[in-house]
């Protein structure tokens, strides 16, 4: 049961779109948070119980990769779906090896997000 979702992206438009998409699927009973960068996300992860995070990779200062590395050190168990324009196959392999549960290419398509949430067991058709 998902109670809190965090959307992390340095683009305001992307945060807005991703929040709308995930809200459409998971409904209004879930608490939705957003962060505009990796540092802010890490603070929120340590202060709030977050079940699922949608994480951008290419961000200034603290990148999505940095967030994943820090999460591992801090033993944070939040499920992470990376949503990125970095579509190198090696990028996907790298984030999965750092503990991400899934990888979705930008621009995010609703059916792809839906499929990923079903696969992770946080959404049921």
């Amino acid at each position, binding site marked *: 049961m998902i109670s809190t979702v965090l959307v992390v992206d340095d683009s305001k438009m992307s945060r807005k779109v991703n929040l709308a998409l995930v809200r459409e699927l998971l409904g209004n009973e879930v608490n939705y948070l957003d962060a505009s960068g990796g540092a802010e996300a890490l603070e929120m992860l340590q202060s709030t119980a977050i079940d699922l995070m949608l994480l951008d990779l*290419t961000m200034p200062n603290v990148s999505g990769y940095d967030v994943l590395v820090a999460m591992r050190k801090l033993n944070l168990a939040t499920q992470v779906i990376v949503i990125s324009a970095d579509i190198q196959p090696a990028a996907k392999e790298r984030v999965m090896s750092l503990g991400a549960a899934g990888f979705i290419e930008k621009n995010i398509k609703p059916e792809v997000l839906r499929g990923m949430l079903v696969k992770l067991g946080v959404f049921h058709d």
Partner: protein
Amino acid sequence: MTDSLSGESLFTEDEGDLLGEVVNIAMGRAGAALAEAFSGFVNLRVPEIRAVNASIIGEARARLEHAYDRISIMHQEFFGELAGHIAVIFGPASYAALRNVLGFDDRDGDGRRQREELLLELGNALASTCVSGISSQLEMRTGLRAPRVVAFDAPARDAVQRLFGDLPVWSGKTLQIDIVFHLEEHDVPFELVITVSPECLSSMKRELSRRVMG
């Protein structure tokens, strides 16, 4: 003189934000192409997008001259609803990496011609992927003219002089996009500088606005 993207009236904050994402996605596609060519990993950084006074190019020149001793530059024009030009900057290390990874031997024969062809091929792939990535997302038609090497392993000052000396003289504000791909295993940068023609900016703003409102 540079301005933040929404600092003046070029784009609103939301339009600038959306353009950043459009460029980000185009950069991601080009980065994937570069990674495939090198069978390596390319570190992507947030692209720099800014409004610049088209008549003032000194800042870009100074930056390139400061960053490199010797460089090669591939230049390509794009035309249509999205028009402008793109320069791909190769430092000496990026060319050496290219040769090493591809197992390319240019020591015999007409080495310079082979090297230039190599720069053209890779530069064209990066440039066309970036430009077509931006144009397709904004639904602005564009075409690319043939690429050319404006400088090959030349002192940076001379190379930059050749590049900017050949460019059309514009007036008013324009848009400059700097993208740096960093090839991880070789620790070398590949740099793209995209300059959008001032004449295209109203169409670009319209397309961005439509998507922001939509």
